[in-house]
């Protein structure tokens, strides 16, 4: 049987390798491996829990806010800190725009080239392109002149003979199916989205000082002061700019992203039957109400594609296995450990580089295998949207039904590569519409004279109990993210992050159950094994983020690092 290796998988964050066995033009089996390890959690031991958000933020610079959020929530949970409403609202806005921007970048810059053949755009008729675009959206830039200008730029670029990042791709592959006009439209929006993402993420600069890696997070609140009468604080001027940028974000999602997504999807409906995966879905829920703490996006679990039942999530039931990962547990093989008890020691046993193949019958990845009640779970926009849909979440139901109706498919179509890509658009639209609601709440609260941004009482470590443990959950763009922390004598005793791409990219577990990427690849057609475009489609539909996925925590009884302070 032919074994295909795709390494590096490009247009993702981090280092991912896929090995797949192909027979008769279809994938029979697949293995997902992460080939990079840093060990940040191990480095965290013994440090100040208030610093953890800054460190864990460096898990990932793409989803650049998510680990900070999960981290401060975990510490606040451990120390029982209730943050002021303004801080919760600022966080909700930061989370909302992160999701919106990240999803758009994923669609246009990381995923689109799996469906869009830009070389075909050269053959398009700009006038026809404009009428195609006009039939699906009233976006003002969709004019024949604009499309012609984009085509001219593209021609000039290609005529240099140096295709730069577009060289050596699978252009002309038989699996590309869009007419030239749709390809030109998508290419034009690829360029527009590049400009747009830079603009809308300025919200992070206003509320967080910069992006990537905003720097105003604090255990207990936020460090961006609020005072309408100060030029050094969040004032009316800055709030109005945030409002304008949120409107710009929503406008692009409604008039460009969603229409493009639906138009492209309509040419690839066969992908609604490919790439289903493990069929179990997990969402932690998010967007706490600043007063009640109730989550706007619900938490829940769906099993075996059964959308008649929604199950509650219990953090105790999360465990990680390392039977196919390059780590060793003291207690031996076959057991999963809860993150608070998490015990991990890196132990590479793969081939000596340079190598051709991994031994996939043994250990083969730096990603661990998290399981919920010993079952693999898919996380991400699809899980989030399914859980909300099944729970009867009004806003979600309306958009899901609209998308399904436009594509002329039933809910079962969601369990697929196409469903995953569509769910990301749905999630994006939900976030784009909900985030301005939090800004209005913030403005309202400030108007009432509430300027509080931080709960000071427990800032000093002297105020903390000798021991505490907690966890923080967050629905990141790529799905369910959890940080678990144990604090002892004011220092981090143990830290563990179980992140979206750990769930999705996980290798097999003790029982030999495949992880979600692996399961989704089985059954995927591959027209040309030397140009496995179809593998990229399914893998990219998950939006992999591998730097996030690899960690290690050490609780093997080593003495804590002592940080000496004079």
């Amino acid at each position: 049987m032919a074994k295909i290796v795709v390494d590096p998988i490009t247009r993702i964050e981090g280092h991912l390798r896929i090995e797949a066995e192909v027979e008769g033009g279809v994938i029979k089996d697949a293995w997902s491996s992460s080939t990079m390890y840093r060990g940040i959690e191990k480095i965290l031991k013994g440090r100040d829990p208030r610093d953890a958000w800054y460190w864990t933020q460096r898990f990932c610079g793409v989803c650049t806010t998510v680990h900070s959020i999960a981290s401060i929530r975990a510490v606040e949970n451990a120390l029982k800190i209730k943050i002021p409403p303004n801080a919760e609202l600022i966080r909700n806005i930061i989370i909302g725009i992160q999701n919106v921007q990240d999803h758009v970048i994923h669609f246009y810059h990381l995923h689109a080239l799996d469906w869009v053949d830009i070389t075909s755009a050269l053959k398009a008729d700009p006038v026809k392109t404009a009428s195609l675009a006009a039939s699906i959206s009233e976006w003002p830039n969709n004019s024949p002149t604009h499309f012609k200008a984009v085509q001219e730029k593209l021609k000039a670029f290609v005529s240099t003979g140096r295709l730069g990042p577009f060289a050596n791709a699978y252009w002309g592959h038989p699996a590309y199916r869009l007419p030239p006009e749709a390809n030109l439209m998508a290419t034009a929006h690829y360029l527009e989205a590049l400009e747009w993402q830079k603009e809308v993420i300025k919200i992070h600069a206003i509320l967080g000082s910069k992006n990537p890696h905003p720097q105003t997070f604090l255990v207990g609140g936020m460090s961006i002061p609020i005072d309408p009468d100060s030029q050094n604080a969040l004032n009316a001027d800055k709030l109005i700019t945030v409002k304008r940028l949120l409107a710009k974000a929503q406008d692009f999602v409604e008039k460009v992203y969603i229409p493009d997504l639906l138009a492209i999807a309509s040419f690839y409906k066969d992908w609604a039957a490919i790439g289903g995966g493990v069929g179990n879905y997990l969402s932690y829920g998010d967007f706490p109400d600043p007063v009640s703490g109730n989550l706007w996006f619900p938490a829940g679990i769906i099993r075996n594609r059964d959308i008649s039942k929604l199950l509650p999530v219990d953090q105790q039931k999360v465990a990680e296995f390392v039977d196919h990962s390059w780590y060793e547990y003291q207690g031996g093989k076959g057991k999963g450990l809860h993150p608070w008890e998490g015990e991990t020691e890196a132990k590479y046993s793969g081939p000596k580089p340079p190598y051709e193949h991994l031994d996939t019958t043994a250990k083969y990845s730096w990603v661990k295998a998290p399981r919920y009640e010993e079952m693999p779970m898919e996380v991400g926009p699809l899980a989030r949207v399914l859980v909300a849909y099944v729970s009867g979440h009004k806003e979600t139901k309306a958009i899901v039904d609209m998308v399904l109706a436009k594509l002329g498919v039933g809910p079962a179509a969601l369990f697929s590569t196409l469903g995953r890509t569509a769910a990301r658009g749905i999630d994006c639209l939900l976030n784009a519409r909900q985030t301005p609601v939090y800004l209005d709440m913030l403005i309202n609260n400030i108007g009432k004279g509430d300027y509080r941004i931080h709960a000071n009482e427990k800032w000093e470590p002297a105020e903390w109990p000798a021991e505490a443990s907690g966890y923080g959950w967050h629905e990141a763009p790529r799905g369910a993210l959890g940080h678990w922390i144990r604090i002892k004598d004011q220092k981090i005793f143990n830290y563990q992050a179980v992140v979206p791409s750990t769930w999705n990219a996980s290798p097999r577990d003790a029982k030999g159950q495949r992880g979600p990427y692996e399961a989704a690849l089985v059954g995927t057609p591959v027209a040309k094994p030397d140009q496995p475009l179809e593998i990229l489609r399914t893998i990219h539909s998950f939006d992999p983020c591998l730097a996030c996925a690899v960690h290690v925590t050490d609780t093997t009884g080593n003495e804590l690092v002592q940080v000496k302070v004079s």
Partner: protein
Amino acid sequence: MDSKKAISEEAGGFSVARLLQERGVSRRDFVKFCSTVTAAMALPATMVPKVVHALDKVQRPTLVWLNFQDCTGDTEALLRSANPTVGELVLDILSVDYHETIMAAAGHQAEAALEKTVKEFKGKYLCVVEGSIPLKDGGVYGCIGGKTFEQIAKHVCGNAAATIAVGTCAAYGGIAAAVPNPSGAVGVREAVSGATVLNLPGCPCNADNLTAVVVHFLTFGKLPAMDSHGRPLFAHGKRIHDNCERRPHFDAGQYVEKWGDDAHRKGFCLYKMGCKGPATFHNCPTQRFNERISWPVAAGHGCVGCSEPQFWDTSPVYRRLPNVPGFGIEKNADTIGLAFAAGVGGAFAIHGAMSALRKDKPAAEETKKEGEE
């Protein structure tokens, strides 16, 4: 160095100016862009014509971007580059032949593209590295296409005209190299001896500084002047504290005491909240981020010192710096940075001291060795 000449010879009559023109960038915008980067490089305005002239002549040089033990934050910074139209185009027209985050090709085809560039433009292309390089255990902690990061770096950086190490990880090992440095991570200079490397630390680096380095290289045919940490003086020649807009409050003894207090709302000095501005050399206060909208101190959070070597082990975020003497602004990192590192180290316990307290012997020994170098 004649790499500039080498670089400009290859692309057959295709100049930056012409390409910009074809892409609808007006001459006026082009000159404006040149003025901006000239200012970013801390060069006098009289140098603008030279920059314009050089960029007019330069022809489509090649750039490859390698991602190692990173978080892709520097790539994201590049995507938000502060000269949105032209700055990005300049990087775009560099012919970015390899960049895993954005390139269309994958797997063998991607590797082939990289190999082709290294062969065809040997000694002429620019290389950007993001992320540290793990050396421990034969480099098994980082592989692409079955090869270790170290093998790739030696090959690609070793054959480049020059390498720019972006972000603190590529420059000094960064977060992965923090105690106990589980994977034996180091920066590019340490992993590839003999390569021409400029460090652009920061977490992530400021994309405007990257653009400025590239333009400097194209204009003058060499890398800009560096300090002893390999950082360009135009971006790292002065302390944050000396350019900080809150400095008058520091001098007047007006400090924030609690998050959200009156002083915090009024924009007083963040020194007592742990600001590392007095020990950090970077142009954040003037260059700022996201088209100069803000920077950490302006948004009410202290500087963490992210562009200093080994800052991860020397500066707990909220710990007050010990005793900040009133250094004059003419001093640079080389004359007082070392004194400061010693001061900070004494207070917080650096690398070696920290590892000595661990029972975890192998890791401790390794770290110690690194600390002593």
